[in-house]
């Protein structure tokens, strides 16, 4: 590759960056913090994806504060203060009982037009089992009880109160929760609770909203601790998890960036004794990062924060190019890259192969990270090969102890007994560690939720079980009618499990009976309590209604139209309407949600014999998906080794070149063994880390192999590269996010292993000569 071609490539990249910058200035850059977007899509099943999307949108933007105290007076005062402070937060829309009541009233008014077709299972049984005289008497007792309250519907329209009882079953608020003013209260044997819920208007993943909510939370905790020591505040909502995760990620970015920068500055000061090499190296990294950020943003339109965390560290690999160029100064003090160029090209190529393998990972965040790293490497590489030869490096001799440290691997490998001891130690390590390796594919490797939040969530779930967004049923049918009929049939099967495996079931058929069921309901009423002289007639006569009104009512019952899904969806509350998922590839689907799940197995067992029913467990699905991807990733790692081996064969045209693969291979084995001995289970992210170990190890091997007479300068550059990698990835290993920590630890161990094992695998001509 000639220098003019490289120059043109560099100019092309600059031009591309200008275009990207202009585009981004027009669009506005966007940083994404949503951890869920990193999760593998279970989108092979579009229905599950749609149901999950609906549940997450509906539930995910809600937040709930639960205050508890042994006495009601301080509870009410504290809850009043919490409510007032929440109402001052612009990102929140507080849901007061009056708002809920109004929505519920509108729903019942719309339903009233179909009241003679709507009955619950229990009502049908009750009508069938109860004598008409008893039905009349019970209704009379209701009407004459002083606390019966205002009539929702006229006895002329609903004489036996069947519709009133039907809509009570559709109440949005749990039965044990009572409204008092703007608060919802709940009493248990030992405590009183006040519940205040709100909707996060811009969404739970909006950074500004998260900051506002976290600030509110801090203020509430402080206020309650000071003024209401007997009142406990618990909270639930994705916004809290997302807010804490974003704050943690931002903190980690700052620590890693600062730690890496300080480490590199210290290293360069000791290694080169002047500021210019550092500035040049930082320039190459900065150029690489900027190129990667601009182009990735242009392609993906938004950059995930974790891409920046991972990607910025991966670009630390790019420091290799600068370091090797800096150690090859000519008589004028400028980089002479003529001898180094084949190694630089091959090093870039093998790194691109390694990172390119990550592109196949069907996890959106990792694809973005792989592209970011590849672009960053290309940018930094072009910066080094085009600009470095034209700049005076002004390096001074390195700090002697650092030079001595760079000779450690050769020192070990140079003594036969030490070499034997190393190989024996490696074999022992592999033997002891590999058989202890366990694999894990758990969703928790993506995000470890805050313990206090989980504890709050568990307490709130015990008090008010919420519908799970992760476990639900999907009912399939050839039409909406068939879906509803099947959902009705499912109720019978689930009844024995209620109170055992599951607390409550939110079934759309309980709120929108199938047309067949509605016809049966109407016929049951028409031929039963609403027949001429039946219970309804008797009661209406006793209440003073005239015969005309009574006759009109009977006619209404006989002719009332059924409620269709289309009409119901026009006025159904969102939490009910979302259950009808619509048509997918010619079939119709509905979701049935569950709350208070205590045992998954019997729930899953219900679905097994029914071809039209699927029990969805997205947590288990994702874990299973991760396991499969982990296995695939190991296979792809093998393929990457193979491709790099072919590239080496093409470059060196002899089988011995394949020995260059030994350093990363042995280092990877040692890394896995150490993880096994440490009891850390192998995850997908450890495997992704091994890709980087391969990339780094190949850089070291190729540069050492190509070093020729300048082996010592090369090993010095490799030591500096290892040290910077260990520094940045070592800091990643300290992350609280399991996947970042796994990745960082793997690369930390792997890069040290690469360095130590390098002379064992790669004997340069000079070494051989010696």
């Amino acid at each position: 590759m000639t220098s003019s071609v490289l120059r043109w490539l560099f100019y092309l990249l600059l031009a591309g960056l200008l275009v990207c910058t202009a585009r981004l200035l027009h669009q506005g850059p966007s940083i994404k913090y949503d951890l869920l977007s990193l999760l593998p899509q279970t989108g092979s099943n579009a229905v599950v994806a749609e149901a999950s999307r609906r549940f997450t949108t509906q539930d995910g933007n809600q937040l709930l504060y639960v205050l508890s105290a042994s006495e009601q007076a301080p509870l009410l005062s504290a809850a009043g203060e919490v409510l007032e402070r929440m109402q001052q937060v612009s990102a929140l829309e507080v849901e007061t009982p009056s708002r809920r009541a109004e929505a519920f009233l509108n729903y019942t008014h719309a339903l009233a037009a179909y009241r003679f077709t709507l009955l619950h299972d229990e009502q049908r049984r009750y009508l069938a089992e109860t004598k008409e005289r008893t039905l009349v008497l019970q209704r009379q007792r209701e009407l004459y009880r002083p606390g019966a309250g205002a009539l929702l519907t006229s006895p002329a329209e609903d004489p036996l109160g069947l519709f009133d009882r039907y809509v009570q079953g559709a109440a949005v608020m749990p039965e044990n929760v009572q409204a008092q003013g703007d608060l919802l209260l709940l009493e248990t044997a030992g405590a009183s609770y006040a519940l205040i819920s709100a909707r996060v208007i811009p969404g739970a993943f909006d950074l500004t909203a998260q900051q506002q909510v976290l600030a509110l939370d801090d203020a509430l905790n402080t206020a309650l601790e000071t003024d209401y020591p007997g009142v406990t505040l618990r909270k639930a909502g994705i916004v809290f998890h997302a807010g804490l995760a974003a704050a943690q990620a931002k903190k980690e970015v700052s620590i890693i960036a600062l730690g890496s920068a300080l480490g590199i500055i210290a290293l360069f000061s000791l290694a080169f004794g002047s500021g210019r090499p550092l500035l040049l190296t930082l320039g190459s990294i900065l150029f690489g990062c900027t190129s990667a950020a601009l182009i990735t943003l242009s392609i993906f339109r938004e950059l995930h924060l974790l891409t920046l965390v991972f990607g910025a560290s991966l670009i630390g690999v790019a420091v290799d190019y600068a370091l090797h160029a800096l150690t090859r100064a000519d008589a004028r003090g400028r980089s002479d890259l003529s001898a180094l160029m084949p190694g630089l090209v091959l090093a870039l190529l093998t790194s691109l192969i390694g990172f390119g393998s990550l592109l196949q990972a069907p996890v959106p965040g990792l694809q973005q990270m792989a592209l970011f790293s590849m672009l960053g490497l290309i940018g930094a590489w072009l910066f080094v090969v085009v600009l470095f030869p034209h700049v005076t490096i002004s390096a001074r001799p390195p700090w002697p102890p650092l030079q001595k440290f760079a000779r450690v691997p050769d020192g070990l490998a140079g003594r036969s007994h030490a070499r034997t001891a190393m190989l024996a130690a490696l074999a022992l390590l592999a033997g002891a560690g590999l058989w202890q390796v366990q694999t894990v594919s758990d969703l928790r490797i993506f995000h470890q939720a805050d313990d206090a939040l989980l504890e709050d969530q568990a307490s709130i779930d015990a008090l008010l079980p919420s519908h799970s967004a992760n476990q639900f049923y999907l009912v399939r049918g050839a039409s909406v009618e068939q879906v509803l009929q099947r959902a009705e049939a499912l109720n019978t099967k689930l009844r024995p499990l209620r109170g055992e495996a599951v607390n409550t079931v939110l079934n759309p058929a309980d709120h929108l009976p199938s047309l067949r069921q509605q016809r049966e309901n109407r016929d049951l009423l028409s031929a039963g309590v609403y027949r001429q002289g039946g219970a309804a007639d008797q009661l209406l006569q006793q209440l003073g209604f005239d015969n005309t009104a009574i006759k009109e009512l009977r006619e209404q019952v006989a002719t009332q139209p059924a409620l269709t899904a289309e009409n119901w969806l026009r006025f159904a509350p969102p939490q009910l309407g979302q259950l009808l998922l619509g048509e997918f590839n010619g079939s119709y689907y509905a979701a049935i949600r569950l709350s208070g799940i205590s045992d998954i197995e019997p729930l899953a067992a219900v679905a097994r014999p029914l071809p039209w029913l699927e029990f969805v467990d997205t947590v288990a699905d994702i874990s299973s998906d991760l396991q499969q991807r982990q296995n695939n990733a190991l296979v792809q790692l093998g393929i990457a080794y193979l491709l790099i081996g072919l590239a080496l064969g093409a470059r060196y045209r002899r089988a011995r070149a394949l020995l260059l693969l030994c350093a990363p291979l042995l280092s990877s084995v040692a890394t896995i063994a150490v993880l096994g001995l440490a009891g850390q289970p192998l995850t997908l992210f450890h495997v992704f880390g091994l890709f980087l170990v391969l990339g780094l190890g190949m850089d070291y091997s190729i540069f050492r192999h190509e070093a020729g007479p300048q082996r010592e300068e090369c090993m010095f550059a490799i030591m500096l590269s290892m040290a910077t990698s260990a520094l940045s990835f070592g800091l990643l290993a300290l992350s609280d996010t399991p996947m970042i920590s796994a990745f960082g630890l793997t690369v930390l161990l792997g890069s040290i292993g690469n360095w130590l094992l390098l002379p064992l695998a790669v004997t340069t001509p000079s070494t051989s000569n010696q």
Partner: protein
Amino acid sequence: MRLGIPCLLALILTPLYGLSDEPPANASHKSLTTVTAETREIVAARLRNQAVIAGEFRQSRTDAKLPRPLESNGHFVFWRDQGVHWATTSPLTQQTVYRPDTTWQMDDGPASARELRSRSDDIFRDVLLNVLSFDEAQLATEFESRWQVSDNGNWQLSLVPLRGHLARAIQTVELRGDENINRIEIADTRGGALLLEFHAQHSEFTITAETCEQLFLYSAQQCQTKLTP
């Protein structure tokens, strides 16, 4: 019994103007101030001793959706801080127990008791217990109070819910009486009304362990605690 209602009257009027140094705004205020000042002295002492009020009621529910009012009769026992036993005897028989914590329905004696969890029953229970026991603090947090008095000494107190679930269900609660509360009228926000008229009120009713269990459905142990001075 002629004691309970004057007590209520005194308590109702006291927070409104009786303790105020401001001169009354109109003539009726002036006349009521005189009445209250006199009544308070008598009633306050009696009230301390009157834990129970019993009597008969006539109930009438009107609703735009009904062709005629639903009228019923019966008797009641109010036991301060413990609840109200409400027994309808005509046109049907049923008993309802409004306790501070729960509401119970008995169609056929204590064995048939079942807890009522309807919101309208809860609202009625809160209003009835607060009004009959005249929990001043509670009433002030829930209602805006307005009173009127006629020259013949009859008085009327209007309670308008301030906010929340009461305001959504109830438009006004009106109490009327002379030396007793003679009627309570609760107008709901949907145009209906519940009228309760009281007569033959007395305070000679004694709560025994048996009546405590039978009428108010407390357990024997609870009754023992409640009846122990």
